[in-house]
C-alpha cells in the first residue's frame, strides 16, 4: 500500500494554495496605493518604504514636467531611507536669488528661464575643453535616482530625490590636467530672463567651487531632474550641482560653465561675507554661523509647528562617506 507522507519529494501543493499570479503581481500596486495614503496612518510609512524598495522610482512622479527615467543609485550613501519632502514644498520654497530673495520668488518668476538650447562650457586645465550641449550631457552617463538630505545654511532641510549621475563621470570624460586642483561652477546670469541679476545682493554671475577631490567624490551629483522628472526652473534647470554634505548654496543652479583651475576660486557668498560663509561650507553642527546656531534644523513639511527642531548631523549625515576628505583639517578654521 502506498502511504503518502510529507517525506517524499513528490508532494505538490494543491492548486488552491498557490497565490494567483495576478494577485501576486498586484502586491506592488497595493503597496503603492497604501503609500499614497489610501491606507493612511502608520501603515503608510511602512508601505512607502516597501514600495520604494520594489519599484524603480523612489517617489511618485508629480506629473508636472517631462519624465526623466533613472535607476536607483548603487553609490554608498546615495539613498537615505528618510521620507522625501513633498514636491509642492520642494518646488515652492527655494533660494535662487537671480529670481528674487524671497523663498516664494523663484517659483513665481523662474518661468522666464530659457533652458533650451543649453550648453555647458568646459574650460581651464583640461585635455578636452569645449562646449557640451545638454543632449550630449544627458547621454554621457547612466541616470541614477538618489535620495539626498539637503541642509540649507539658514537652518532648514529637505529630502530630495534627485536624478543625475556622479560629476566624476563628466570630469573623467574631459580629462583634467595634473595641475588642476579646483573646479569652479559658473551659473547663468542673464538680466533679460532673471529679474534680480544686477541687484546688489551678490556679485553676478553666481560662482561656486569645489576642491577637485570633492568634485570627484561619487556623492557629488550632476543633477538634471528630481522626483523622476526634469528639474523645474526654480530648482536650477536644466542642469545643476548637488553636494549633499555641504550647505545648499554650494550646489550651483543652472550651470553654464565648469572651469578647472590650480588656485582656489573666489565664490559668491564667500566674496559677500567671508566671515560668515567659508569656501568649504561643510554642514557642521559644531561651527555656528556668526548670526545663528547650526546645531539644529527644521525639516520642511515634516517637523510640526510645535515640534522641537532636529539635530543637525556632521557632514549632513554623510560623514562615513566623505569624512576622509577632510582628515587632519581644522574645520573650525576652514569652515
Amino acid at each position, binding site marked *: 500500500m502506498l502511504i503518502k507522507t510529507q517525506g517524499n519529494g513528490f508532494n505538490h501543493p494543491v492548486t488552491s494554495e498557490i497565490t494567483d499570479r495576478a494577485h501576486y503581481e498586484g502586491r506592488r500596486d497595493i503597496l503603492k496605493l497604501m503609500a499614497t495614503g489610501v491606507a493612511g496612518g502608520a501603515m503608510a510609512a511602512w508601505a512607502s518604504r516597501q514600495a520604494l524598495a520594489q519599484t524603480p522610482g523612489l517617489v511618485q512622479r508629480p506629473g508636472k514636467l517631462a519624465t526623466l527615467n533613472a535607476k536607483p543609485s548603487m553609490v554608498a550613501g546615495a539613498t537615505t531611507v528618510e521620507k522625501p519632502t513633498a514636491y509642492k514644498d520642494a518646488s515652492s520654497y527655494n533660494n535662487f536669488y537671480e529670481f528674487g530673495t524671497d523663498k516664494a520668488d523663484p517659483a513665481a518668476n523662474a518661468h522666464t528661464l530659457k533652458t533650451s538650447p543649453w550648453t555647458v562650457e568646459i574650460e581651464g586645465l583640461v585635455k578636452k575643453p569645449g562646449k557640451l550641449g545638454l543632449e550630449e550631457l544627458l547621454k554621457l552617463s547612466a541616470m541614477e535616482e538618489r535620495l539626498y538630505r539637503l541642509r540649507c545654511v539658514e537652518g532648514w532641510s529637505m529630502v530630495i530625490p534627485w536624478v543625475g549621475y556622479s560629476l566624476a563621470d563628466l570630469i573623467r570624460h574631459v580629462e583634467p590636467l595634473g595641475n588642476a586642483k579646483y573646479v569652479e561652477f559658473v551659473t547663468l546670469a542673464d538680466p533679460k530672463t532673471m529679474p534680480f541679476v544686477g541687484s546688489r545682493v551678490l556679485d553676478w554671475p553666481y560662482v561656486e567651487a569645489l576642491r577637485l577631490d570633492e568634485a570627484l567624490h561619487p556623492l557629488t551629483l550632476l543633477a538634471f531632474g528630481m522626483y523622476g522628472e526634469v528639474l523645474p526652473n526654480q530648482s536650477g534647470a536644466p542642469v545643476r550641482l548637488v553636494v549633499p554634505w555641504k550647505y545648499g548654496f554650494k550646489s550651483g543652479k543652472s550651470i553654464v560653465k565648469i572651469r578647472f583651475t590650480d588656485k582656489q576660486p573666489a565664490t559668491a557668498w564667500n566674496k559677500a561675507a567671508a566671515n560668515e560663509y567659508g569656501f568649504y561650507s561643510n554642514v557642521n553642527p559644531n561651527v555656528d554661523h556668526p548670526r545663528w546656531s547650526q546645531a539644529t534644523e527644521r525639516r*520642511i513639511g515634516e517637523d510640526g509647528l510645535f515640534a522641537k527642531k532636529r539635530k543637525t548631523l556632521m557632514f549632513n549625515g554623510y560623514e562615513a562617506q566623505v569624512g576622509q576628505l577632510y582628515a587632519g583639517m581644522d574645520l573650525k578654521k576652514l569652515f
Partner: protein
Amino acid sequence: MRVVLNQRLSSKFAKPLAFALALLPFVWLVTAAALDWLGANPAEALERSTGDWTLRMLCVVLAITPLRTMAGLPALARFRRMAGLFVYFYAVLHLLAYSWFDMGFDLADIAKDIVKRPFILVGFTAIVLLTPLALTSFNRAIRALGGRQWQLLHRLVYMVAVLAIVHFFWMRAGKHNFAEVAVYAAILGSLLGWRVAKAIKKKASQPSSMLRSQL
C-alpha cells in the same frame, strides 16, 4: 468734511470697529496656520508676519498724534491707547513665535541666543522697553504716576521705534535686502522727525523753557 470725520470717529461704533480691524491679522494668521495655508515653512511665516504687524502697528500708533494735529482730528486721540496695546500684542506674539517655534521654549537656549545674536538682543530690548508702557496704560496708572511722569515714560516708544528698525535692518542685512526696511524706516523716521521739528519750534518760541526736555 473735517466735522463729519470727527463725528464718525467719535461714534460709539468707531472703537469696536478699529479693534476688530486691528485683530484681523491675528485671526488670519491663526486660521491660515490651522488650515496649512502658510506654505512650506509655517513657523518662519508666523515669526515674520507677527514681526511685520508689530512694525505696522507702531507706524499706526505713532501716526495718531501728527494726524490729529495736522488734520485737525481731535477725535483720534481716543484710539491711541488701543493702538499702543496692539503694538504690544503683536510684539508679544512675535516673541512667543520665536521662543516657541525656533527655541522650543528652552530658556537657557533663548538666553544664549539673546547674548549671541545682536539683532535678537535689539528686538528683545525693544519688547522689554514696551512692557512698562503696556503695564501703565490704564487710567489709574496714569493718575498714580502723574501726567508728566507718565508722558515721559511713554516717550520710550520713540526708542522702541528706532530699535525695531535696527532689528529689522539687521535681520535683512544677511541678504542685503533693504527695500522693505527702507519703507518702514521712512515712515517711522518722518513720524519721529515731525515730533523733533515740533519740539524745536516750541523751544524757539519759549526760550525760558530751554532747559526742560521738550522732545
